[in-house]
């Protein structure tokens, strides 16, 4: 079971968001910053999508700035989009919203219906979010403002958390988060992470043959290994994990692995290289 570990990681990062400014209030500066850009013991780490925006907007190319995306990119090459599945503070709220939506649907009797993943298949979802990223980056270049940072969900959340800790207020940008969450609750579950988020789109890009991914031990590649397909029902990104573990959308959250009952009660899904 990966779930307890994933939750622990998500909540740890969520609390860190409040912990960093608190430490700084107590004048401990070992770790500073927000999830746009963070500094751990002198090592700068920045959100690659924010840096991309800033580079395009300013039209300059500064090596020290590029260095700050080295670790996120390396991390993505090794473990895939785990930032999204295991850490992002927006994602954990979105998990809560999806859970609440499930409850509400259960109460009004629509629980047997599958979720509305049909809205866009994974290919179209990828096309949507990369178009959004490209358009946003082009707009940043033209306008000279890193515009996509205005809709950087994890960044906004952590900046707001910091302001909440420091000044006991929140600012107008929280409204953006509220609107997105409301849409997820009422109409399109998970739409932000699937269809738009620039951070998610950029960190998904770095994939190599050796990147961690979900694979099925079934000998029927491409078709469901069992009748229930619990894995597809569990996937928050709307993938069919037994064949799409390598899709750019996959966050390696391991929900599918936890859900898989397999053919004879033994799970067939696992992370490549870590199967039993």
């Amino acid at each position, binding site marked *: 079971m990966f779930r307890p570990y994933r939750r622990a990681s998500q909540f740890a990062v969520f609390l860190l968001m409040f912990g*960093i*400014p608190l430490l*700084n209030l107590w*004048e401990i*500066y070992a770790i*500073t*910053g*927000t999830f*746009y*850009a963070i*500094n751990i013991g002198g090592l*700068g780490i*920045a*959100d690659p999508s*924010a*840096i991309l*925006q*800033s580079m395009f*907007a*300013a*039209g300059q190319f*500064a090596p*020290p*700035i590029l260095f*700050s995306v080295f670790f996120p990119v390396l991390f993505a090459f090794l473990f895939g989009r785990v930032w999204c599945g295991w850490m992002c503070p927006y994602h954990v709220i979105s998990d809560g919203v999806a859970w609440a939506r499930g409850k509400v649907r259960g109460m009004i009797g629509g629980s047997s219906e599958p979720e509305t993943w049909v809205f866009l298949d994974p290919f179209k979802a990828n096309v949507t979010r990369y178009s959004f990223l490209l358009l946003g980056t082009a707009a*940043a270049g033209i*306008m*000279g*403002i*890193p515009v996509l*940072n*205005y809709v950087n969900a994890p*960044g906004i959340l952590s*900046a707001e958390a*910091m*302001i909440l800790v*420091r*000044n006991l207020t929140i*600012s*107008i*940008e929280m409204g953006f988060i509220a609107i997105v969450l409301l849409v997820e609750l009422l109409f399109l579950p998970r739409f932000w992470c699937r269809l738009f988020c620039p951070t998610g789109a950029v960190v998904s890009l770095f994939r190599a043959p050796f990147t961690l991914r979900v694979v099925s031990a079934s000998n029927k590649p491409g078709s469901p290994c069992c009748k229930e397909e619990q894995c597809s029902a569990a996937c928050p990104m709307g993938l069919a994990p037994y064949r799409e573990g390598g899709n750019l959308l996959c966050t390696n959250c391991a929900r599918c692995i936890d859900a898989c009952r397999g053919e004879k009660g033994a799970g067939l899904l696992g992370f490549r290289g870590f199967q039993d």
Partner: protein
Amino acid sequence: MIDEFIGFFRRVFAHGENPFSRDYIHNRMRPPGAAPEQSFMALCIRCNRCLEVCPFGSITRAGLGPTIGTPYVLAERKACYLCMACTRLCPTNALESSLRNPEQARMGKAVINTSICYSHLFADRDALPRDAGARIGALCNTCYNVCPLQDKAIMLQGNLFPIVLDECVGCGICVERCPTRPKRAINVVPTGMGRPDESGFYFRKARKHFDVSRKTVAGDQSGVLKGDDLMDAKERIDGSGGAPKFTFPYEVDKGLKDWE
């Protein structure tokens, strides 16, 4: 409406101006070491690390508008105390990270409005504003006393009233402490914001040179200045005062017109 639209496009295309980064207000500066406004708006990723680390709580996050999320120092609320903690943390060099010397910060420049400054009023006109007596002595000079670059950025003219010098870094401490209300008698003009009192200075000076030369050459021959006399006359020409009619694309504080 249509004029504004045309003006907007002209500024963008003919003058290459970035319409999203020409938003200046008095007493609202970028933190020290900030890149010129246009590059700053491009570089700053709104991470707010500068805000987080400022031990004085000087930096605020801009609200709704194109600058949303970017850092500002609002001098009337809380000035920058030039500790230079924020500059070294900026991940994108929107704040020059190598800047350590506060004297090299260029956040803006303070300007004294002599028509409401207590010290100037007292020194110039022997007058004490009606409401001032209870709060201050006749010679206030608070700005001089609080300035971290005392005698470099601001000095006392004849030990009586303050004047701001070129070394002023625009930290805004003087603004924060200046006792006049509702308007402060000293205000910081942020870097990048034009100043009506400086605009056209050289143009006006050249113009007066021309006028003096013309008058002395073409006019009454007996009064013609030549050689050293002409040079003396020219050297005494002062281009200040009488600002030409320019329109400024930002809010102009009328009180600043005849500073100094």
